[in-house]
C-alpha cells in the first residue's frame, strides 16, 4: 500500500467519523437512533474502491466515533455498529447485483433502510423486547427514503467531481452508473 492510499483511507475515515459525531448534534425525536450520514462515505468507497475497503473504513469509523464520543461498548454504540454493518452489507450487495437497474441513489436508499432496520434489531436485542421495537419503526422507516436520497445525491455529486483514485499504482475502475 502506498502512502497515498493510506492517506486517502485516513481522510475517508476521518470524514466519516466527523459526520458520525456531528450528526449526534442534530436534535432528533429519538436521539439514540442515528441518521446514518456517515454511511454515505461507506457507499462512496464501495463504488470507488470496492466492498472490502469500504468495510475497513466503516469499521474504523464506528470504532473511532465510539471512542471519541465515549459511547464505546455501550448501547448507543451497539446500535451504531449494527446500523452501519447492515448498511454496508446491503449497499455492497446491491451495488454488485442490483445496479443497474438501480443507480447510486437507489443503493443509497436501500442502505438507509438497512441502517434503520439494523438499528431496530439491535435496539430490540439491547432492550430485550424483541419484536416490541416495531412500535418505533414507523417514524424511522418514513425517514429512510428521504435521507437515503439526500445522502445519495451528495455522494453522487462528490463522486462525479473527484478524479479517479489509484490502487496499487493502477487506476481503480471508477464506475459512474
Amino acid at each position: 500500500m502506498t502512502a497515498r492510499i493510506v492517506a486517502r483511507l485516513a481522510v475517508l475515515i476521518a470524514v466519516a467519523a466527523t459526520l458520525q459525531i456531528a450528526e449526534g448534534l442534530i436534535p432528533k425525536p429519538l436521539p439514540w437512533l442515528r441518521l446514518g450520514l456517515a454511511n454515505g462515505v461507506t457507499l462512496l468507497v464501495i463504488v470507488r474502491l470496492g466492498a472490502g475497503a469500504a468495510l475497513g473504513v466503516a469499521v474504523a469509523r464506528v470504532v473511532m466515533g465510539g471512542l471519541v464520543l465515549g459511547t464505546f461498548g455501550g448501547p448507543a454504540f451497539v446500535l451504531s455498529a449494527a446500523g452501519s454493518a447492515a448498511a454496508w452489507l446491503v449497499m455492497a450487495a446491491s451495488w454488485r447485483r442490483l445496479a443497474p437497474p438501480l443507480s447510486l441513489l437507489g443503493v443509497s436508499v436501500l442502505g438507509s433502510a438497512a441502517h434503520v432496520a439494523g438499528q431496530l434489531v439491535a435496539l430490540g436485542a439491547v432492550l430485550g423486547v424483541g419484536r416490541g421495537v416495531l412500535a418505533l419503526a414507523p417514524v424511522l422507516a418514513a425517514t429512510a427514503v428521504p435521507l437515503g436520497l439526500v445522502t445519495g445525491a451528495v455522494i453522487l455529486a462528490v463522486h462525479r467531481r473527484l478524479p479517479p483514485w489509484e490502487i496499487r499504482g493502477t487506476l481503480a475502475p471508477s464506475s459512474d452508473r
Partner: protein
Amino acid sequence: MTRLFTPRGLWNEMTGADRAASGVILAVAGVLTLGLRAPGEPARAVVRVGGDVVAELPLDRPGTFPVPVRSGTVVLVVEDGAVRVSESSCSGKVCIAMGAKDRPGDLIACVPNALAVRLEGRPRAGDREAPDSIAR
C-alpha cells in the same frame, strides 16, 4: 451539478428501479404506521432492564415505581390505565418526553439505561389478573 439538489432534478436522476425501491420502502413504512396497534386493552407494563424483566406493573393499580438502573433511577408512574416515565437519571430524558402509553404493543425506552417498558395486552376472553399472593 446543483440540479441534483432540487426535487425535480433528483427525480430525473433516479432510474425507474430507484423509484420503485423508494416506493416499496415508503409503502412498508405506511403499513407499519397503520398496522401495529393490537386490539384490546393492555393489562400490564412489562419493565425490562438490560433485557431482563424486573417488574410487571398492572395498569389498573395506580402507583409510583422507582426502577434502579445503571445511571441511577427511573421512576415510572401508573395512572388512568397508562404508564409514563416521570423522572429519569439519564442524560437525554427522551423517555420522559415519550409521554404516557396505554395501548398494547406501545413502548417507552430509555436506551442509555437499557430500560424498556412494553405494554402487553391480555386476551379478550378470560382475564389474566395479578395473583392475590405468591407461594415461595
